């Protein structure tokens, strides 16, 4: 049943990659940057600076002793004006450092290219660089690159699928920075002792495929694999399946099937960092959507407020109703333009009320389109029903936790039912139930 390299289900989305042919434009540092100390999946960093401190580009402003964390650096030179909790998308309060820029962009003098002679030094360097998964989730890279002792990693997979509509920042990175990309791949293969690397990319990007083949394709062990264009080709499990025919068991990690997946931009950043020692302080961001006057890719300082980024892209051509960080399928709607670009921001999209307002849901006609589209082979209609009834038994029976929130089911539903929203609710119900059981067990043990 499988067409070669094609996972089950998924959806054909409009590409809308209007910014693909525009070279990236560098945006000057804004007057003020807003840098949250949690820009990764894991534990929040402790601030290492306080109000009034003078900081330079690349200086650490937050760090943690915990493993699941990546240090946060200042992206500008200037003065810390505020260290306090602020509201970020998702409704969470995060300790945030505000820095007023002095306009000089003085780099930290002590920054030197890292010495990398063995794997331990390499992983330490990756940690210092502040790198997190730039494809979306923000998983600390040094954790990802240190698989559990038992794992026998044999393949490095480079995720260049970029399957969400609008986003072209990885695409531009490939076209503009392919030699760095090759350098990063070779660095990773050498340090991790890998002999095989597969670059997975959707076949709707012929220019990038040609560039990859030209620059990386001839390197030893590296192959470029064009994949059918279908959302969510870039989802980690789908990509692993498409490139290696291995399926990651529910609740497990890529290292359980002996692969490591890295996003293209992350890899080329690593090469840049190895050359200069400058940590992750800037990011290529696709600024697009129907309300943006001049859609384009912009290289911005991390911490640049959204309103400044949009202003740089010519401002709004019409009043935005919804602003999304990330793609339209999995991106997060922002409550305000006062939030800022973080490490794993790959797009900022602005929609008017026509696309922004939620469609009204009607009754489920049980057409089965949602389950046909689900790449995880779930039954979204049953998950929806179970979640709305808080039916924990059904929620676990139908595998709610395996849902990766890709959005295919909501996208295809002809009744416009808010399936993913309900499934998230269902996951929360399951987590609460699990926490209760745990608390009860602990109470009983005392």
């Amino acid at each position, binding site marked *: 049943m499988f067409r070669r390299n094609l996972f089950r289900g998924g959806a054909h989305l409009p590409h809308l990659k209007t910014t693909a042919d525009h070279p990236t434009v560098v945006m000057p540092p804004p007057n003020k940057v807003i840098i949250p100390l949690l820009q990764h999946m894991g534990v929040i960093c402790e601030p290492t600076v306080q109000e009034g401190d003078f900081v330079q580009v690349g200086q650490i402003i937050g760090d943690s002793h915990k493993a699941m964390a990546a240090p946060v650096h200042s992206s500008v030179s200037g003065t810390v004006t505020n260290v306090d909790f602020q509201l970020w998308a998702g409704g969470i309060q995060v300790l945030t450092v505000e820095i007023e820029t002095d306009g000089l962009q003085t780099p930290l003098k002590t920054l030197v290219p890292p010495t990398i002679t063995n794997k331990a030094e390499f992983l330490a360097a990756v940690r210092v660089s502040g790198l997190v998964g730039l494809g979306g989730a923000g998983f600390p890279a040094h954790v990802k690159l240190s698989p559990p002792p038992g794992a026998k990693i044999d393949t490095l997979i480079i995720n260049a699928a970029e399957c969400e509509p609008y986003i072209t920042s990885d695409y531009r990175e490939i076209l503009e920075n392919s030699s760095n990309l090759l350098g990063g791949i070779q660095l990773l293969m050498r340090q991790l002792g890998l002999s095989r690397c597969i670059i997975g990319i959707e076949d709707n990007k012929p220019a990038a495929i040609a560039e990859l083949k030209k620059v990386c394709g001839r390197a030893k062990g590296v192959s470029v694999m064009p994949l059918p264009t279908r959302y969510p080709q870039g989802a980690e499990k789908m990509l692993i399946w498409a490139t290696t025919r291995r399926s990651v068991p529910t609740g497990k990690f890529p290292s359980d099937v002996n692969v490591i997946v890295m996003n293209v931009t992350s890899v080329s950043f690593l090469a840049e960092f190895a050359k200069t020692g400058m940590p992750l302080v800037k990011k290529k961001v696709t600024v697009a959507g129907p309300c943006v006057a001049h859609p384009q890719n912009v290289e911005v300082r991390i911490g640049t407020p959204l309103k400044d980024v949009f202003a740089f892209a010519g401002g709004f051509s019409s009043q935005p109703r919804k602003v999304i960080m990330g793609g339209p399928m999995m991106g997060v709607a922002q409550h305000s333009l006062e939030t800022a670009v973080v490490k794993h921001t790959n797009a900022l999209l602005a929609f008017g009320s026509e696309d922004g307002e939620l469609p009204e849901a009607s*009754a489920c006609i049980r057409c089965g389109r949602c389950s046909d589209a689900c790449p995880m082979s779930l039954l979204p209609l049953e998950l929806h029903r179970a979640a709305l009834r808080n039916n924990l038994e059904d929620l676990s029976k139908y595998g709610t936790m395996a849902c990766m929130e890709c959005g295919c089911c909501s996208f295809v539903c002809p009744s416009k039912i808010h399936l993913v929203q309900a499934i998230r609710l269902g996951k929360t119900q399951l987590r609460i139930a699990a926490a209760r059981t745990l608390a009860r067990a602990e109470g009983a043990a005392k």
Partner: protein
Amino acid sequence: MSPTLLVTSSPHLRAQGSSQGIMLDVILALIPALGAATYFFGLTVLLPLTFAVLGALAGEYGMRVLVLGRDNRLADLSAIVTGLLLGMNLPPSIPLPLAFLGGAIATAFVKEVFGGLGMNFMNPAMGARVFLFLAWPSLMTSWGPTLDGVAGATPLAILKDGEAAGQALPDLFHLFIGDRAGSLGETSVLALLLGAGYLVLRKVIRLDVPLVYLATVGLITWTFGNKTALFAGNFPVHLLSGGLILAAFFMATDYATQPVSRVGKVIFAAGLGLVTAVIRLYTNYPEGVSFAVILLNCLVPLIDRYTVPKPFGAPKAAQRA
């Protein structure tokens, strides 16, 4: 002053199309069959159809809005689809009040009582048809002389007990074109297939259920259809007659009353074929389609229960390339 932004859960992009659009496609797909019936039997055949549709609308409104006090959902067009499907399953000579009653029963008691669109476990048109059939058996099977030279008995009735009595079967060509006795929408296979083709192209239905259903009926009637020899049954007549084509493409594919998973759908379709063929070959009823559909509808929850798909990566999946 920054704009007021709307925060919602992803995805922020939805496909075109609506449930209403799907219902409209089904209505459009029935038009060729209606046209054929009108052509062969005259405009009067549209009367029972109209009454069935009106009954379905009245039944839904009455039960949903007046009795249960819920919102009016007639605009989703599903009641019209139900009325049309029922109307096409009625003999042209049916008294009009019965057609109206059938429509009302379909939506009020088979659909709305169970929660409305998508919540009913039984195909409303089929449920109502069986009710009418059990309550007024003679009215539901008097097909009447309709065309010059076309016998009043349906081909299946002839096949069952008429051949011996000297009644001739219409040839396959006439079965396919549709000038023969039967209920409105049962007659022209050609017109029904045109409509079904449209639904497939529009991706409203998939071919798995109809094909498995037809194949099962064909196989069983071919194997056991002749009382004297195996593999000698007149299966083409079985496939082309009665409500089989209509049911396979328009009733068995009803979303609400078929299993959710792909595997479940195939089991469901094979079950339909089995029951239809057994009723046709071994019981007193010449036609088994409606009974098969409602029987299998009742088994759907059971099929669903045993065919929950395994999530991707859930089984001891092959971890090696």
